[in-house]
């Protein structure tokens, strides 16, 4: 009895065991293909006695030579932004901005004999870009150009381009700028000019019969600031829809009927800003275009300002020393530049800073890009609280690695930090780079093995 019972139990046990074995084999084969089930990224046990084969160290004692380049010229046409104003401070002297544009021809419909002129105005819209003290009144004159706006063979106009204009203003306005308002328009009355044009329209004058004749007759306009009033530069939208000449008139029907003629801004390629700077009495006094001034001679500062054409240049005089050892690689190279403390009260710090390469002739060559060919933008750290750690950090690994790949570092192949390509030609954003405390730093992450 007892033995029989045990046999039964054993058979049950054996059949259970068989299923167990089948399961185990399945699990076992699973284990063969999937060796470890621990999620990587979490396992830390054992870290205390690893004999590491690699080390990474940062070296940031490379010397940097920083200087300020004064660009020969900055392309300033076709930006959709007009700057007018005069700004002076002790940092960079004065900036004088004039905005040029012409008018678009469209066939005029005669308003009829009974129509009589009321008034005429140029109407502008603020662009929200403005610099300096916009709480003081400024004065702007509008002059008619005496020669037509003609682009260079490259199709552009520059901050240095000059177009002659009539010494007599067709309009003038003194006002408190309101650049942050989207709906406040800036109106500059040009009644004399407007009435003359109205008469020609009314008479069906031949000079208004074609675009060619029209643009020869009305060559264009320039907005000129009065340097004796106010201390600001204001930005205006400069496109077909936001620069308008309006002529208001009326005629008598049952009662008076009010009408207007609108003439839009002309060719966008002809719209440009002329920006003149005067560095007299500043550290940059005497700087020549296409030249550079070392920060050693400018109180350990380097200067950047968009349309003025100032660009900080950075050179690495000691990078050749990188080649002294062979058991290493550069993992990352960072360029760190900090603004001069308290230098950004009037001109807000640009949040997006880019970097270019430049040469011995101080010509800006190409914008540096990341591995995805996207322009490299600096990481901007703004130390709101203590104002001590505000800085721009560029990952210039690609540049440094490409430079050293031939075991030779060319001192003259340098970097220039600045605004975006469009920012350079369409803004007056300013940055003053501290070159001593702290200096502009090159931080190199070395892997040794």
């Amino acid at each position, binding site marked *: 009895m007892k033995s029989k019972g045990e046999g039964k139990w054993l058979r049950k046990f054996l059949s259970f065991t068989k299923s167990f074995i089948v399961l185990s084999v399945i699990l076992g084969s699973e284990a063969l293909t999937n060796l470890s089930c621990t999620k*990587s990224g979490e396992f830390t046990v054992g870290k205390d006695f690893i004999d590491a084969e690699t080390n990474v160290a940062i070296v940031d004692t490379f010397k940097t030579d920083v200087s300020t380049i004064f660009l020969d010229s900055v392309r300033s046409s076709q930006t959709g932004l007009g700057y007018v104003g005069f700004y002076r401070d002790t940092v960079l002297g004065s900036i004088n901005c004039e905005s040029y544009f012409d008018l678009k021809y469209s066939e005029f419909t005669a308003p009829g004999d009974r129509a009589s002129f009321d008034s005429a105005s140029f109407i502008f819209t603020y662009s929200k870009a403005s610099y300096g003290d916009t709480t003081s009144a400024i004065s702007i004159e509008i002059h008619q150009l005496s020669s037509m706006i003609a682009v260079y063979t490259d199709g552009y106009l520059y901050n240095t381009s000059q177009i002659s204009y009539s010494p007599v203003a067709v309009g003038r306005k003194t006002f408190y700028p309101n650049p942050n308002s989207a709906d406040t328009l800036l109106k500059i009355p040009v009644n004399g000019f407007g009435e003359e044009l109205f008469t020609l329209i009314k008479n069906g004058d031949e000079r208004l019969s074609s675009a060619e004749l029209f643009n020869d007759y009305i060559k264009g306009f320039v907005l000129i600031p009065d340097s004796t009033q106010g201390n600001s530069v204001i930005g205006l939208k400069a496109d077909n829809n936001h620069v308008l000449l309006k002529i208001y008139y009326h005629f008598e029907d049952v009662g008076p009927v009010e009408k207007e003629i609108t003439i839009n801004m002309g060719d966008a390629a002809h719209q440009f800003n002329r920006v003149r700077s005067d560095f007299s009495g500043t550290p940059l006094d005497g700087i020549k275009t296409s030249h550079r001034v070392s920060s050693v001679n400018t109180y350990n500062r380097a200067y950047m300002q968009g349309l003025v054409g100032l660009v900080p240049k950075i050179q690495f005089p000691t990078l050749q020393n990188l080649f002294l050892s062979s058991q290493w690689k550069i993992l990352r190279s960072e360029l760190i530049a900090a603004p001069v403390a308290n230098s950004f009260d009037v001109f807000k710090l640009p949040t997006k800073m880019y970097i270019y390469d430049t040469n011995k002739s101080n010509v800006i060559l190409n914008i540096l890009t990341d591995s995805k060919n996207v322009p490299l933008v600096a990481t901007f750290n703004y130390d709101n609280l203590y104002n001590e750690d505000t800085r721009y950090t560029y990952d210039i690994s690609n540049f440094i690695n490409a430079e050293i790949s031939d075991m030779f570092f060319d001192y003259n192949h340098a970097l220039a930090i600045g605004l975006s390509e469009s920012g350079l030609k369409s803004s007056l954003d300013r940055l003053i780079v501290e070159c001593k405390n702290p200096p502009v730093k090159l931080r190199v992450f070395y892997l040794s093995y």
Partner: protein
Amino acid sequence: MTGSAYSQVTSSPYSMFGLGTPEEQSSGFSKGMGGTGIGFMSDQYINMQNPASYSGLDSLLSIFEVGVFGKYTRFSTIKENQSLVNGNLKYILMGFRISKRLSTSFGFTPYSSIGYNINSTSVLGGSVQSFDKEYSGEGGVNQVYLGGSLKIFKNLSAGVNAYYLFGNVTHSEASSALAYSLKDITYVSNITFRYGLNYHFDVKSSNFCIGLIYSNGKALNTSNVTTVTTNTGTTELKNRTHNYSIPQDFGAGLSFRKGYFHAGVDFERSIWKDIKFENPLIQGRTSNRISLGVEFPSLGLNKGTSRMMFYRFGAEYKGSPYIIQGTPVNYYGVTMGAGIPLKGVVSVVNVSLELGQNGIRTKDLFRENFVTLHLDFALRALWFQKQKYM
């Protein structure tokens, strides 16, 4: 994937030292008896621990054994616990008698294994910052062996296993934040031998068996390829060298058999103290292994038949092959198992459960507690004689 599927047999941070974690050379029945096997001469299983034991193989049978395992490990430091599961093929063995005096066995089994993944941080030299770094290791040494055993006298056998050791020791380090990785692969190989003696005698109705084993230490042939990969490309270095050796090893075992009852004890000494570890925190030392085990059959109707089951118990202590900053990583384990006869292709399944502990928790070290399930599938075929009666 150099190192093949057999590479990551263990998965333990301790496997980062030297050739990795040395693998047990026990198989089959021995797994359930604390790895005890030097003094055993089984007719049913292949006992590769002592090459002289092949003389005991049944003259009628050729034996084929496959071992696999699954292991759950819990790692504890004084601060935290982490666990992982791993498993793999453990061995493939074949054995049979060639003639009245000569038997042979050959097979594949790992000598050591490396498998770890550790996430750590490293200080950026020249700064106060640190960065995440992942260390990982894989590979290990595999061995294929060909063994022979000669019956010198009726009670005395001598045997030798010739091993071809091959594999790689691979350590990697990588940082995704800094986009680099280093992979240091040392390929190792050499031929080594294990010698064995077995002497058995009867006292009344009891049978005693004494086993002795010896392996000589040897430096392995190495060649290294280290690759460093960064954003700018990959550099291959061939001028690095790492030296690896296997230790000299002595062992003695005694077993006792009465009827179907079996018991045994092993003592083994490995001279790791002559082996140099590159890690400055690690020093080799002489490592002793002591184990004992018993095996007894199921009672009742099946006793003495081919359906008889065996139960096994054992215990094992294995001294650490090295000390880490003065602390050894000793192993303690208890095992239990069963040999379950089956009908069909697989004649017997040996199931063993091992409860073990490795290392201790100190300020810097950690303890591994694990449960390992060993499965051994033994296939027995009548190759040389017709089946007469079963």
